[in-house]
């Protein structure tokens, strides 16, 4: 598949309509490329789903007090 290098742009909706259509048509008939694209989509999704961190409360409190101290509130 010629467009491998632009698959991220395809997934992000950043490609021109005619190129998207070309990729869609190819994916429709090529299970290997479909799997390639799906795996990349799934990678992005997994990274997003596992991403958010909760700030520990002691860090939260220290940040507040340091900002106040620095700004001499």
């Amino acid at each position, binding site marked *: 598949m010629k467009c491998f290098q632009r698959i991220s742009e395809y997934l992000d909706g950043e490609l021109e309509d005619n190129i998207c259509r070309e990729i869609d048509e190819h994916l429709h008939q090529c299970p290997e490329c479909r799997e390639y694209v799906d795996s990349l989509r799934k990678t*992005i999704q997994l990274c997003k789903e*596992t991403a958010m*961190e909760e700030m520990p409360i002691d860090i939260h409190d220290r940040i507040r007090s340091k900002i106040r101290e620095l700004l001499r509130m």
Partner: protein
Amino acid sequence: MDKVSADGTDHSLIAAFKAGSTEAIDRIVERYENPIFTFGLKMCGHLQDAEDIVQETFFSAFKYLESFREETKLRNWLFKIAARACMRKRRKKKCEPDREISLESLIHKDGSEGKYEIPDWSDDPSDNVLRAELKEVIDNAILSLPPKYRLVFNLRDIEGFNTEETAELLEISKQSVKTRLHRARLFLREKIISHYREGEIQ
């Protein structure tokens, strides 16, 4: 740079800050501390470093907020400051050389069938152990990205900035953002797949 339509809440908070409201400071911190903390942790990998990034970002922001003209969104401006703080921290540590990710090596690995087995993220709370393991695998994979790819990946895919915003934030071209993002995603996919192939998660 074009005038960016500011977020209404941010606009009010900035106006209140300029008018001397201390409550505005608390509200701005409350609004952005967690995403900046997440960004700092994903960039540096240590709680202490992430805490430093949050502090440096807000201190620098409040120092200059008086003259902030809202030509960019507050969120973008804060992340620009945070990204610079991450880069400064990396330079100080002098222990993490930047390097290129070779697209050829990643594409080469894509050759055979049936090799893209990527686990699903379960929403079932009873899968807490598996979820924690998977999160660790992914966090480590992100941290193993070379810094310039990690910056772009975290801003684009984790924080949700678009290509143009990321290019402005990092002062690089849109094409560089696209190239680095694509290579980072392929790199992460390989890391996740190879971890599963090695059977470290059952």
